[in-house]
């Protein structure tokens, strides 16, 4: 168990006795300190898995280990676990500050500490100036940020955010991403989102699920092969024959102006990329873009496509 902030072992869940399995022997592990992208299509089971961790749902089979504790227990995990539940309605008649103070008090903070903490998390989500406003008077994006702030109250060790960036405009999303990224290493963060581009910029660990099962998990750089793959975008067709002759250990695949270079394990990819650039330069082929590794989105689609 050491080193894992969250582990799910063979967890099965269905919403009704005869309903379909929403989680089908789900096994996943998120190491302590990771910022984890929790990725899956609609209905894959992401929200259900997060709800199980938060204790809102109870697994029919399997085990959930949270911060070394077996199963969810509100008192043993008090103040150590933060969850942003998807679609949970905030108390609209209260102010954001009142709401967050209340949650702080429930986490065991004293009156003064809860007030300080409410102000701090509102600052984190850039809502310090709207803390006294009733939640009903806030825009959708602001409410979403209050909900995110609720998961950060008390600086918990493990935070699960279900679609935290949904409904936020680009600048709000950027600000929140930066705030979440700033906590890297201090806490374990699990973020589910359909915007894989956003997740890729934020996360260092990824868990992909499909139809209630984990199809891939690991460090982001391993999953997207950043150490073994380079993708080139060229101005004209790639000289595949010349490249294969110069670097016979490498696998080159081209599709018109797109070139994918896969290196064997242990090869210095920097050196290999210089060789490719020399060959391209010698033929007068301009390079329009280079990317180390595959996009998370492409990797995800490849995984889900191959399993489906």
């Amino acid at each position, binding site marked *: 168990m050491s080193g894992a902030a969250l582990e799910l072992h063979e967890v099965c869940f269905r*919403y009704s006795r005869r309903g379909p399995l929403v989680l089908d022997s789900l096994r996943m592990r998120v190491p302590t300190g990771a910022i984890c992208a929790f990725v899956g299509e609609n209905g894959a089971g992401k929200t259900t898995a997060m709800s199980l961790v*938060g*204790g*809102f*749902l*109870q697994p029919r089979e399997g085990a959930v280990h949270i911060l070394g504790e077996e199963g969810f227990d*509100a*008192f043993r995990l*008090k*103040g150590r*676990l*933060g*969850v942003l*539940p998807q*679609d*949970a*309605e*905030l*108390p609209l*008649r*209260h102010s954001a500050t*009142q*709401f967050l103070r*209340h*949650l702080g*008090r*429930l*986490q*065991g903070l004293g009156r003064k500490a809860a007030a300080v903490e409410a102000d701090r998390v509102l600052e984190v989500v850039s809502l310090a100036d709207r803390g006294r406003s009733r939640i009903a008077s806030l825009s959708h994006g602001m409410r979403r940020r209050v909900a995110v702030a*609720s998961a950060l109250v008390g600086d918990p060790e493990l935070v699960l955010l279900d679609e935290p960036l949904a409904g936020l405009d680009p600048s709000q999303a950027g600000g929140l991403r930066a705030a979440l990224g700033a906590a890297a290493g201090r806490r374990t963060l699990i973020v589910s989102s359909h915007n894989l581009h956003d997740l890729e910029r934020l996360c260092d660990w990824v868990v992909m699920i499909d139809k209630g099962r984990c199809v891939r998990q690991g460090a982001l750089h391993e999953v997207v092969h950043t150490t073994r793959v380079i993708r080139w975008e060229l101005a004209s067709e790639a000289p595949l024959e010349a490249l294969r002759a110069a670097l016979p250990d490498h696998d080159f695949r081209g599709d018109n102006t797109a070139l994918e270079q896969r290196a064997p394990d242990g090869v210095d990819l920097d050196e290999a990329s210089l060789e490719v650039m020399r060959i391209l330069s010698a033929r007068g082929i301009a390079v329009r873009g280079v990317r180390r590794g595959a996009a998370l989105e492409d990797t995800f689609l490849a995984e889900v496509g191959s399993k489906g």
Partner: protein
Amino acid sequence: MALWASLRDVLHIAGFELLRALRTWQAVALVAVYGLATAWSTYIFVNVLGAIENEVARNLGLVPAEHPGAMLDRLVTSASFRDLVEGMIGSASILDDVLSWPVLAIFYLWIGIGLLPLFAASSSADALAGDVYSRAVRFQLLRTGRAELVAGRFVGQAVLSILAVSVSAVVLFGVGTWAMAPQEDLALALALVSITPRVWFFGLPFIGMGLAASQLTVSSAWARVLALGAVAGTWIAYGVARWASSTDRYAVLSDVVLQAVPQAWAAGLWQPGIGWLPSALVCSCLAVVIVLGGFLVFSRRNL
């Protein structure tokens, strides 16, 4: 330590529940409607009192009084009034003790026993179901246990009911002193203060019914129907059990039912001195049992 943590959470949730009730106008609506119902029924009662007084005056060959309550001294000795009060308290053994109270104080406890169950059950039926539906309950459930959540909501509703009962006492005092001939206001006020806890204790099992219903469904409307149905059911069960207790065939069954329905313990709330406290304790225990009945389902539900 664990008990203190639980208690602390219960109080925080109760406070937040109360604040929510005030912010959503639920508390104001409850107090206003309950106060209006009390005012209206007090006004009717005062007029009934006046009619009985006029009848007594006619029998004695006196001139009827202009305002009800002008001849209460004679009224409390009249057979028709004694019959009325005996019907209200459901017992002849403590009739003389009760008749020593101010008339409006007698009515206050009686109307509380009649009206509060409906308001208490209806109000508390909304305490959980809506939040489970909107998933708002998840914010609290991540940080405290389900038992603490339910207990906190119960305490919040119980405090809300104290507010409603107290306001109804003030309303009754106001309507009574306005519509009746001058009475001993201080004696009435003191009597109302001493009776308020009795009314409140009687309301607890019905708060429990509302909260139990609220734990069974995610629909506030359906929870309210269940709660009001349960209140009506206890009245029917009480009436049937009282009838059956006089028969040989169902005597045992009816005795069991009479232990379990709050209405059967209402008679004890009329006891003088501290004699009403055992009935109040039973009402509290019934409330806990009823809430626990709902909790058996709620504790295992997916939320």
